């Protein structure tokens, strides 16, 4: 039983990261009906941005590790990726906004490949090891169930960001506009909502959340490399589909379920199926409940 709870605790920490990435997929899909395949690579850039920021601040060499420094690194990498998200939207997606959905999808794949190879060229293919911006400590949750303060940070930061996002969408004018654009883009435009600006903001927020996930992964699993975004990107996408793509709470639940199921599969079946579980879930969702757990069934005009 101890082992089960240990797996569960680790799964929740890992799942929070998927949830953060899944939020970006869901937000972009909600407003644009575009699956932004470059999102996993934005997460990679976020991890590297945090890595270089931490190095520039001299973490571990000049300055002592501290939560304040960690916050600076986190916010810095989120800002960098928000900018990257805006750039991607402006340069890659806006020009094909009026084209078919397939064009946008292929553009997304192109952006993804570009970011991966850009990463290899600029950061190098060698894995980098994240400096410890917060001194590690082990905390006993219960008899035999141990977590690190890093894992707790991951869960807490994820919850804070998700709550902030939900409040933003529900309570602010911009959030309201985002919902309006998601509901009906043309109608929103007729109501005087600056659709283009809202879409840009959506990209910025989604990318900033991916950067936060990148930072948190660097904290708990210190190895980062340019292709690290591919698998988590795909899994977070599955998480978003599982929760109901377009639904913010759905992405959170989907991410957590993905993380936990991955741990249980590795713990009780075999590590060989670690990546397979994501696709098993995807197929099951598509067969049983295509709209996802919290998604609404919407009749499509054909």
């Amino acid at each position, binding site marked *: 039983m101890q082992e089960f709870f240990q797996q569960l605790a680790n799964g929740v920490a890992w799942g929070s990261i998927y949830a953060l990435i899944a939020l970006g997929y869901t937000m972009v899909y909600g407003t644009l009906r575009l699956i932004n395949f470059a999102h996993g690579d934005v997460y990679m850039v976020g991890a590297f941005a945090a890595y270089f920021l931490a190095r520039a601040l001299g973490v571990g060499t000049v300055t002592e590790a501290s939560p304040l420094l960690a916050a600076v690194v986190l916010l810095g990498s989120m800002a960098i990726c928000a900018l990257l998200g805006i750039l991607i939207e402006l340069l890659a997606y806006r020009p094909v906004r009026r084209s078919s959905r397939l064009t946008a999808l292929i553009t997304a794949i192109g952006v993804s490949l570009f970011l991966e190879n850009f990463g290899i060229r600029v950061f190098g293919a060698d894995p980098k090891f994240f400096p410890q911006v917060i001194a590690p400590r082990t905390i006993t949750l219960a008899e035999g169930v141990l977590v690190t303060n890093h894992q707790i940070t991951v869960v807490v930061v994820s919850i804070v960001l998700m709550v902030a996002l939900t409040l933003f969408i529900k309570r602010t004018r911009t959030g309201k506009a985002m919902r309006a654009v998601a509901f009906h883009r043309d109608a929103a435009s007729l109501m005087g909502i600056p659709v283009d600006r809202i879409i840009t903001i959506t990209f910025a927020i989604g990318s900033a959340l991916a950067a936060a996930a990148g930072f948190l992964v660097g904290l708990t699993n210190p190895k980062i490399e340019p292709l690290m975004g591919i698998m988590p990107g795909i899994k977070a996408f599955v998480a978003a589909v599982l929760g109901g793509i377009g639904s913010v709470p759905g992405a959170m639940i989907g991410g957590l379920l993905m993380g936990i199921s991955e741990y249980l599969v590795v*713990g009780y079946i075999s*590590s060989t199926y670690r990546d397979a579980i994501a696709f098993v879930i995807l197929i099951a969702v598509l067969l049983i409940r295509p709209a996802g757990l919290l998604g609404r069934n919407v009749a499509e005009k054909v």
Partner: protein
Amino acid sequence: MVRIGRILSPAVFTLAVFLLFTGCAKREAEIKVGEYGSLTGSTATFGISSKNGIELFVDNLNASGGIGGKKVHVLVEDDQSRPEEAATAVNKLIAQDGVVAVLGEVASSRSLAAAPICQNAGVPMISPSSTNPKVTEIGDHIFRVCYIDPFQGMVIAKFARNTLHFSKGAVFRDNKNDYSVGLANYFTESFKGMGGTIVADESYSEGDQDFKAQLTNIKGKKPEFIFVPGYYTEVGLIARQARELGLTVPMLGGDGWVSDRLLEIAQDALNGSYFVNHYYEGDPNPIVQSFVQSYRKRYNATPDGLAALAYDAAGVLTNAMRQLSTQDANAFEALSGPPNADQKAARARLTTLIAATKDFPGVTGRISLDEHRNAVKPAVFLGIENRSYKFVATVEP
């Protein structure tokens, strides 16, 4: 304009032909040797150490006049730590660059991808440090200058059972890696044969970031040690995550741990653990000391076991070339000549001479190749204490 072109074009053509021939003549004075390795990717230090070792040996050789008046030119290809790229790299070295021998790889999976290409092309390949037995089984052109995994696994099992007096072990292997799977099996077989039990056998895949699920299972089985026959990047992360889960037993490993980045990644997590290397840099043997000193002087780093083996692989290869130059001047000349039947025959002679290597005085010990084209050599145990290595024992075969 047309007329000038008519007059000029034969002149340009003659010049081009002239340059082409002089270009060839210049290249013919060199013997071209190919090297493929992981200069980038998850096992980048493997490739970089090996490249440094080979470069050091060959540059010294060329500075002292080369072989029979000819210089050795090493062409290096990066395989990005990926088997499919290793195959591409070796294809290019043989088909495009026309190398007469190939040096590489460290990782057995990558050597296994490239060896059939060398074998089919009739180009001898010497792997400095691939320990999986399947590598040299590919064919009679494939050699290695290190020990093989059945020996390595047996030595580690003996060390765990007889020296450390452990009876309950866990194995944590990399399922996607020929080296890791092979070594795990040989270790398990030997350890069980000595009366030990394996209480947990878990696996991961190279490139994984998170190992806590498997380590939680291992912890539940309460082993006295964990055998991790993987490569340094994953080993470092595994050690850290094991400690985070409160799993504090020592870890044992093979030569995949050999990297100057191991302790940088693992930090304090590997204190109290042991692994097998190919040599020890503090060995008082003058061959070792002169190698360590010249390496330090040139690269400002301590050579690891893989650099030493690469140095020896270059040594064994050029030693065979030197023998060819004294035995058969025409065949030796053909080695640096055009890729024709003469060169093919010369490569076959070279292969035979490599196979006959006996008592070559290498940095990693005396190298003699057996009938399976493997070297039979001692293994060196190193321990880790306070983020530094200490010599524990040398185990003779």
